[in-house]
């Protein structure tokens, strides 16, 4: 199971040792197994890749900077980094760039944050810019909003996303609203971030998927990071945005390793990421489920399917442009999410696609989500509340019949 965490997005022809992959069948594949990285950076793993190529094509440049095409960055050197460190790097770069950026939350200062995202920042920027707060989520979220209204750009860290339920009043009634109700006089450029999602036996209260509760709030933007590359890029973009942004991280993805570019880059908050282009079916996913999908994709490719995998990244608003183009191409949609069935991101995405691309669908949209239950503690039970690769494979097979 541990390998799930360090599983790569999928380098060109390399394999995971714990995958029952039939190597011989690779030669019979219709299309090359290409994993697209927007910057084309090589993904370093411990495994020696088998097969000719380890580089891969890059499609649409998701980065906002034009001309930052993957081809050019592929040749430049990058540095290997873990996801939590990529977040920290993005944070540090923005704090260097703009003196108004500050961090507040529990244990973010000298402790460095529960997931080490703010490690080393307090000694560098001082206790005032990296502020340890008492334990009152609604209070420090409100504090961040008040500071934002008077000129600062705070990043509010929830130790676990579930705790931010205590801050719902401030987030919904004030964060999302005050720019509007003040007639545009006050802006709230806050970033609210923290780890969420189902972890390893963290218990129901620490396994919340808050994106389903927050998605309705007008005035906020929501993004979910899934790789070190997009984590850093989204962090920077969220800080620079004048809108309040909620950045969803995942407890199990903090130790993902990847090589990211040395030079500065900022991603677009509203764009999705093409993980693997394909022809047969569009699989929409985000955060940790991306890795389950990619694992399933290997099996699917082996069985002769060509799934197109898109990491939607932007949970509010949806990137209906990329999603729409994909639906128009494949005509079949599978959504794989970690949210509960009722009222999750998948539910909204299903509605949005049905509304906008009804004519292009050859089959009803299938949405795989967690059941409508609190996450149980026992390891096996917990595993079965989360969508697993075999279910994804079965769903695609069913969809493509």
């Amino acid at each position: 199971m541990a390998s799930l965490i360090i599983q790569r997005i999928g380098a060109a022809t390399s394999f995971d040792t714990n995958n029952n992959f039939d190597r011989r069948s690779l030669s019979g594949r219709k299309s090359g197994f290409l994993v697209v990285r927007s910057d084309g950076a090589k993904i370093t793993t411990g495994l020696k890749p088998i097969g000719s190529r380890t580089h891969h094509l890059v499609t649409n440049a998701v980065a906002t900077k034009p001309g930052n095409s993957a081809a050019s960055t592929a040749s430049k050197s990058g540095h290997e980094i873990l996801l939590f460190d990529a977040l920290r790097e993005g944070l540090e770069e923005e704090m260097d760039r703009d003196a108004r950026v500050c961090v507040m939350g529990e244990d973010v200062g000298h402790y460095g944050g529960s997931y080490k995202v703010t490690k080393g920042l307090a000694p560098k920027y001082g206790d005032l810019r990296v502020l340890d707060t008492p334990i009152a989520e609604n209070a420090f979220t409100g504090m961040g909003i008040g500071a934002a209204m008077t000129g600062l750009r705070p990043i509010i860290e929830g130790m676990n996303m579930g705790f931010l339920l205590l801050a719902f009043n401030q987030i919904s009634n004030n964060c999302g609203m005050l720019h509007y109700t003040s007639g545009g006089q006050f802006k709230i450029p806050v970033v609210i971030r923290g780890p969420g999602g189902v972890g390893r036996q963290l218990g129901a209260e620490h396994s919340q998927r808050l994106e389903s509760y927050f998605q309705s709030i007008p005035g906020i933007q929501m993004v979910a990071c899934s790789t070190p590359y997009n984590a850093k890029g989204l962090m920077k973009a969220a800080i620079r945005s004048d809108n309040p942004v909620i950045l969803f991280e995942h407890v199990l993805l903090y130790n993902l390793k990847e090589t990211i570019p040395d030079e500065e880059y900022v991603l677009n908050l509203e764009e999705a990421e093409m993980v693997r282009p394909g022809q047969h079916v569009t699989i929409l996913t985000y955060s940790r489920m991306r890795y389950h999908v990619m694992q399933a994709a290997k099996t699917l490719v082996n069985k002769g399917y060509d799934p197109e995998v898109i990491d939607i990244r932007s949970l509010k608003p949806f990137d209906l442009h990329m999603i729409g183009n994909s639906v128009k191409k494949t005509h079949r949609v599978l959504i794989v999410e970690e949210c509960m069935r009722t009222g999750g991101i998948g539910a909204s995405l299903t509605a949005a696609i049905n509304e906008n691309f009804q004519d292009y669908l050859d089959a009803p949209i299938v949405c795989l989500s967690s059941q409508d239950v609190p996450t149980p503690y026992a390891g096996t039970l917990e595993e079965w509340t989360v969508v697993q690769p075999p279910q994804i494979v079965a769903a695609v097979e069913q969809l493509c019949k």
Partner: protein
Amino acid sequence: MTIWLAVTRGANYRTKTLISTAFRSLRTSLTTFASGDAREGTSRKPAYMSSGTYYRSSHFGASEARQQVNHFSSDDEEDKSQVLDFPGGPVPYTDEMRFLPGSSEKRVQCYRVLDDEGYPLSSTQFQHVRKEVAVKMYSGMVTLQAMDTVIYEAQRQGRISFYMTSYGEEAVNLGSVAALSDDDIVLPQYREPGVMLWRGFELQQFVDQFFGNKNDIGKGRQMPTHYGSNKHNVLTISAPLATQLPQAVGAAYSLKMDKKDACVVTYFGDGCSSEGDFHASLNFAAVMEVPIVYICRNNGWAISTPVTEQFRIDGIVVKGQAYGIQSIRVDGNDVLAVYNAVRAAREIAIKEQRPILIEALTYRVGHHSTSDDSTKYRPVDEIEHWKTARNPVSIFRKWIQRSGWWSDKEESEFRANIRKQVIHAVQVAEKTEKAPIGNIFSDVYEKLPKNLMEQEKLLKETVKRYPRDFPNAPL
């Protein structure tokens, strides 16, 4: 200068007797409580609480405890073996099992400058105000009353949907804001329009906000009396209670970072002090050491809940001590007392970068809002008493006229004039076009996103297609 020093010293003296944040003083006051209990010494109290009968550890028969506890004298702090080395400082042990009382015997005293007839108390230390300030405060209070009267009537006539009056609290409104500088950031609750008035928000702007027309500074989005103006350093009011309190800490934190010579002032009511955000905010402010003045308008009522059902303690002033915040109680119907207290509090807050809590005792003469009829839950003569005998405007009027800065003639002229101005503002606001449909969608985000653009287009098309169903729709 000397009078001002007297105020500071006086304030400090008072705050020392009222509360103290130093550990030593806290301990002293504890022993005061203890001796107070000793004097009481009734048989009703349990054995360990009555005078002279201290609870001995031998009752437990625990020899271990016996060894640790010696005859600990309350003045003997220097004996290091009798202290517990605990995070935050040494804690002296005691062999007495004594519970701190839940409340003090006496209520916290209330600072006032003028008596009910508007005469300055002989021994009060206060700073004299200049004529301009006094007249501006008084005319602000009268304007506030006039606006309340006219707009309340307008609501009753169905011309606007909702309003909240500030009757009875004019002194808290004007006395406090007069003591601030224009750089001080204010986060009101919803019953402090005097703050905006003082800082130059026009009558017409107020009324435009009530009507939600196209000139409304809030673009027709917030309910009446929930305004804000960044030009006047007043942050837009949000309806849920106490949300402004943690935000005030954030704003003060921002001032602290910029090292500005300004503070944050935030208002809230007695009912609001029950909200979790109130407690968290005070705690945060004390821990962060930010320049913030909390002003509580304890007006006795939270809609229909009287303070006796809101908390079980002597008001809000004693709560500051729980968080390490210097606090003072003032007569909220005495403009000069409020002015002086806020003035002093502001100085301390900025110079020492710490929060201050002011509880202004006043009374909500009007209803909670136009959706409320307070005669249903409180006696009419109680309302009448505060409306007449303790009316802040008439008390101050007596003082200002006696000072030779106001007269009966000016009073009647001013009242007639201001009433005319408010009515005129209402007439203008009524005729002004309502806020445009585009205001529904703009400012949700920094830039109008695609989905909202589509929704706006859809709505505008619908309005155009069915003009009879959407009369007077301002496109």
